[in-house]
């Protein structure tokens, strides 16, 4: 399950200050270092396309990030929007139109000049329904065509048929194409360009000689000459090559590898703190599920879900399973999401006694160490998770042990992923599932499909015709309200309430947020790993290699 990048944000702020801070920080490190050199790391799969408009996979996204020039960049460290090819922008009050003022004197990597016409061309291509661009889909909020208007060589405005929430943030994903270049999408505006590609093996990126950015001393960016990308799906091999010094960074490490590396060379590993990724447990509340009625009654009971949540020792999950590289989670938004996290949310403390009280008030009772419901059924249920994911299997076993303390017997079942998904989305033949969400997006609009009760991805009880509970009805209303509001504070107010409802109702019992773990060789200078993707090379244009 993935919440895809579908973002919108509040109106443009001045971000030049933030940029300046970064510039200084990086310049301080790099000033003494020579330019040039090669950065090497692994892509975990073959990029499916080099066309930035068609990107739908992580590897293609990485190429786009390194080669594409965008109008607005979401700073991966500050999580703020920053001007890139656009000097400034303005979103209209109705949220349907955005106008850009562009930099001048900028050239594509093949020397073709960049102008407002290229922006208009890119948007037209992007929104062409025949292209089926996943990036384009994020802009599609209503039926009708998108109008682009080139006002001058440096001014362009784009009008959408319906308001698009968080419109400006979406442009982080839109790499501008040249209308006139004969090299089509291979003519780029980003710091690097694709120089060589061996299918299944490697990709070499070279510095774009026409890249517009310079450092404080007036030196042209990027500092690096090239980036060597190896296509390597095997994580063990990746780790081994890192240890041998054949690659310079690993973008996301799991906690086990992190500890292994940290034991031998603590200076190369980075724990950037909790990421947006979460792991959660949920009970099947679907009416059409084939599970017994009395079990559905448990799962549909707020008290039951709350008690389970109270009886889970999240600190132990983080400590034992992730060796501390995870934070207990209490709600749908990671504290790493600086703007959207609801600071009023109270941490869920581990309290089996309260949990038992909660259950007893709901008609459950303990008999010979076994919890029974009011009809005398023993409380036994299964938690399924995908086989092969050690962290999830271990969390399930810890939860099994925790719940045994309040008389609940849990069976842990590991299934192959397709079987699990089939049970989760087709047959609804499950009782509880432990899975994670990979969150790539800061904006709650990306989570509409999870929280709306009518959605297929409303996992605990999907595709409801009308909301079956009052709290789901309220969540529907709040999610729609935040999507249509343009005032970010109003949006946040609504979404805070959603987070509070989730905390009260526990439809998802959030367990932990994994920390963003990465490794960067000591020969790389200027690296500042962050929680947002791409964690280690988000500032690739500022990185330098020592001793090369």
């Amino acid at each position, binding site marked *: 399950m993935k919440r895809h990048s579908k973002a919108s944000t509040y109106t443009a702020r001045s971000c030049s200050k933030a940029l300046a801070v970064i510039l200084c920080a990086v310049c301080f490190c790099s000033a003494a270092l020579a330019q040039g050199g090669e950065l090497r790391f692994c892509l975990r799969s073959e990029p499916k396309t080099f066309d930035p408009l068609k990107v739908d996979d992580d590897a293609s996204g990485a190429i786009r990030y390194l080669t594409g020039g965008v109008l607005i960049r979401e700073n991966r460290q500050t999580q703020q929007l920053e001007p890139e090819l656009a000097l400034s922008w303005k979103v209209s009050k109705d949220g349907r139109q955005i106008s850009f003022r562009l930099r001048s004197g900028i050239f594509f990597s093949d020397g073709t000049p960049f102008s407002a016409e290229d922006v208009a061309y890119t948007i037209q291509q992007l929104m062409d329904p025949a292209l089926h661009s996943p990036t384009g889909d994020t802009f599609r909020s209503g039926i009708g065509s998108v109008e682009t208007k080139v006002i001058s060589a440096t001014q362009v405005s784009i009008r959408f048929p319906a308001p698009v929430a968080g419109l400006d943030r979406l442009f982080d994903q839109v790499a501008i194409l040249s209308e006139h270049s004969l090299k089509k999408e291979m003519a780029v505006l980003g710091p690097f360009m694709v120089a060589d590609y061996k299918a299944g093996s490697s990709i070499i990126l070279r510095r774009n000689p026409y890249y517009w950015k310079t450092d404080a001393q007036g030196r042209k960016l990027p500092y690096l000459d090239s980036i060597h990308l190896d296509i390597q799906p095997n994580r063990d091999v990746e780790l081994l090559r890192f240890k041998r010094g054949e690659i310079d960074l690993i973008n996301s490490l799991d906690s086990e590898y992190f500890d292994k590396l940290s034991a031998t060379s603590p200076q190369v590993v980075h724990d950037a703190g909790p990421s947006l990724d979460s792991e959660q447990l949920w009970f099947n509340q679907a009416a059409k599920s084939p599970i017994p009625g009395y079990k559905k009654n448990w799962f549909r009971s707020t008290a039951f879900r709350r008690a389970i949540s109270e009886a889970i020792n999240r600190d132990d999950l983080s400590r034992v399973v992730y060796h501390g590289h995870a934070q207990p989670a209490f709600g749908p938004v990671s504290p790493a999401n600086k703007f959207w996290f609801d600071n009023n949310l109270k941490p869920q403390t581990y309290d089996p006694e309260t949990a038992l009280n909660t259950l007893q008030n709901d008609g459950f009772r303990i008999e010979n160490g076994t919890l029974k419901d009011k009809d005398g059924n023993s409380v036994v249920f299964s938690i399924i998770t995908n086989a092969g994911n050690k962290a999830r299997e271990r969390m399930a076993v810890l939860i099994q042990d925790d719940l045994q303390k309040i008389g609940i017997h849990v069976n842990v*079942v590991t299934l192959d992923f397709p*079987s699990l998904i089939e049970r989760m989305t087709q047959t609804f033949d499950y009782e509880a599932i432990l899975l994670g969400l990979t969150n790539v997006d800061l904006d709650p609009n990306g989570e509409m499909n999870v929280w709306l009760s009518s959605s297929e991805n409303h996992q605990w009880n999907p595709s409801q015709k009308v909301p079956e509970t009052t709290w789901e009805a309220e969540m529907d209303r709040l999610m729609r309200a935040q999507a249509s509001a343009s005032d970010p504070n109003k949006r946040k107010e609504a979404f805070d309430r959603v987070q509070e409802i989730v905390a009260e109702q526990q439809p998802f019992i959030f367990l932990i947020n994994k920390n963003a773990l990465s490794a960067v060789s000591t020969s790389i200078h200027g690296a500042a790993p962050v929680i947002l993707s791409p964690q280690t090379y988000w500032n690739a244009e500022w990185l330098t290699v020592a001793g090369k």
Partner: protein
Amino acid sequence: MSLGQRLACAVLVLVLGASFAANWLAPAGYARQYRDATDAPPSHTHWLGTDELGRDRFARVLYGTRISLLLAPAAALLSTLLAALIGGFAGYAGGAWKRAAMAITDLFLSLPWLFLLITARALLPLNVSPVVSVVVTFLLLGVLGWSSAARVLCASASSLRSSDFVRQARAAGIHGRRLFWMHVLPNLKPVLFAQFWISIPVFILSEANLGILGLGVAEPMPSWGSLLKELEGLVSVGEEPWRLVPLILLVIVVTSFQIVISNQEEVAA
């Protein structure tokens, strides 16, 4: 009984005895999580240290031995018997019987087992106790594991069929089932024993691998399979040699069994 055989017997008795005395030898049990002492090295409280969840490895090895030492040979016996009956009979009967049995065997060998096992898992309820789950798994392994051995047995039985002693026995008026049981099957014994001994470690490991399909032993219960699986990705054997105990135990037990049986064979032959 030779010295080696006595020694092997003693080892087996010791291992089996220890596994059945697990309740006394490791009173804390295999599921107790010492969460403040995870992945600990051997100590006087945990003789083989603890696993990633802080569970006593010694207890897990003992309880795992109990499960696997009972069920893997049982499954191996089941599959060997099936192979003997189907392959042996087909080879002995010859003609249409042989063709039919070999067609079934080939079909069995070519079936996409992964999908069938996934289906089997889908048919099982999710809430099965760990014991039921592991018993069902070994039963499945036993029922499914006969086909390749059946081919070998069919070929052996085929050659036995035209042997002098079978002809002599037929000339003595012995016939049909009696001839098969008394004259053909005993001569398949070496092949059957080989099949049996190969099956045991194979089944122990298969049980562990079936975990990805939601079959096999379920947490928190240990089996040799699940213990061996923990060795996956173990890089620094030198630093944590105690983690190899389940593997060593498996080798010792299988070898001991073989010593005991093979010596009996020599005497018999």
